[in-house]
């Protein structure tokens, strides 16, 4: 972290390495587009690199800090404005694209949620972040984070109780 803060891009890249997979999963679920998710992670990495001083060398907060940048990048990607489309044929799926398995009910329900609702679910259940870290990533209080997780989970399974979620 010290050498990264001092300006060593390779050190920073090494710090980010273990976070790229969770960051990509988060972005993919928020955006529903794997290519856009990789772009978002790449852009978020550059932004994180440029803002690294904000972290003040606190390696313990790196994960939540970076994931919050990724989530912001996803929000911006969704808001992006297309200024012009000159000529673009439909991009077809590659013939060797991996065969998808049939989506489960929960899969479909997850996609019906808004990206902002999916975000706390992925952070808490998929990435196993404790409540405090979910809260830091979302930049809200732990109780608000708990409430968001529960609300989103209830939208997936209406019969879930708070005890079953936490």
């Amino acid at each position: 972290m010290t050498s990264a803060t001092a300006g060593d891009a390779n050190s920073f890249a090494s710090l980010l390495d273990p976070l790229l997979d969770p960051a990509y999963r988060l972005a993919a679920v928020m955006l529903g587009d794997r290519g856009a998710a990789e772009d978002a992670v790449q852009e978020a990495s550059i932004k994180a690199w440029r803002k690294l001083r904000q972290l003040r060398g606190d390696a313990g907060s790196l994960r939540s800090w970076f994931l919050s940048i990724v989530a912001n990048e996803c929000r911006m990607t969704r808001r992006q404005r297309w200024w012009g489309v000159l000529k673009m044929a439909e991009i077809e799926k590659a013939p060797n694209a991996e065969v998808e398995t049939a989506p489960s009910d929960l899969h479909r329900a997850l996609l019906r949620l808004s990206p902002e609702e999916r975000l706390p679910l992925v952070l808490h259940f998929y990435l196993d972040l404790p409540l405090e870290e979910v809260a830091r990533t979302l930049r809200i209080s732990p109780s608000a984070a708990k409430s968001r997780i529960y609300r989103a989970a209830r939208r997936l399974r209406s019969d879930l109780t708070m005890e079953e979620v936490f």
Partner: protein
Amino acid sequence: MSNENFRRELNNAVDQISGSPSPALRDRVRSSLRGASRSAGPNWIAAAAAAVIAILLVGVLVVANPLNRPNRQGPIAGTSPTPTPSAPAASPTPSPSLPAMVCATNQPPMTSSAPAVVFIDSLRTGTHAGYDRLTIEFKNGAPTLVDAQWQTSTTFTQSPSGQTLTVQGTHGILVTMHGADLHTDYTGSLDIKTGYSGLIEVRRVQDFEGVVQLALGVSGPGCYRWFFLSNPDRLVIDIQTS
């Protein structure tokens, strides 16, 4: 349903949606980190200073209007295009009564807050399923005018030398950015050979008097798209590969 069952099912759903990241993601990130410049100081200080200077400048110009010229405005529907008697015929300053003269079809309106020159600080390339991407990142705003011209040849004329250059690929795209600068902040390569199948080469054609031109050597079906993203401002050009 227990917490564990719910978690397992949810995780399966997330796996289905996201799949795994491509193996190239790590290299892409590393490569873009190496190519990205880091600002020397907190950005907000520079931004605040620039904003204060811009506000003061605009305030002085609006209040004093030292040249006693009308403000630059777009055309107003229904107004008569009568010339302003006090305006010299050769004056480059547009008058609201002469809208047709200043409204070139390919120039977007310029606002007082638009920077005269935006500095390109990074050129990045990446490959994705179905397309290759060039990202041109600007340090301080978007250029006033951007144009992308498709051409069947891969030969371009450099400016101001007039010499020709040829890029790799089967076709070319000439990207022109007005009000841009590639030599102040950008320190990377001026001839990027990507090794991709769609976007083969990116090479500087011009970086002179606020106009930057890049030649793109491309291959494939000949389809592309371009758009802007903000924060930071960047122009993205995608070349279709399949």
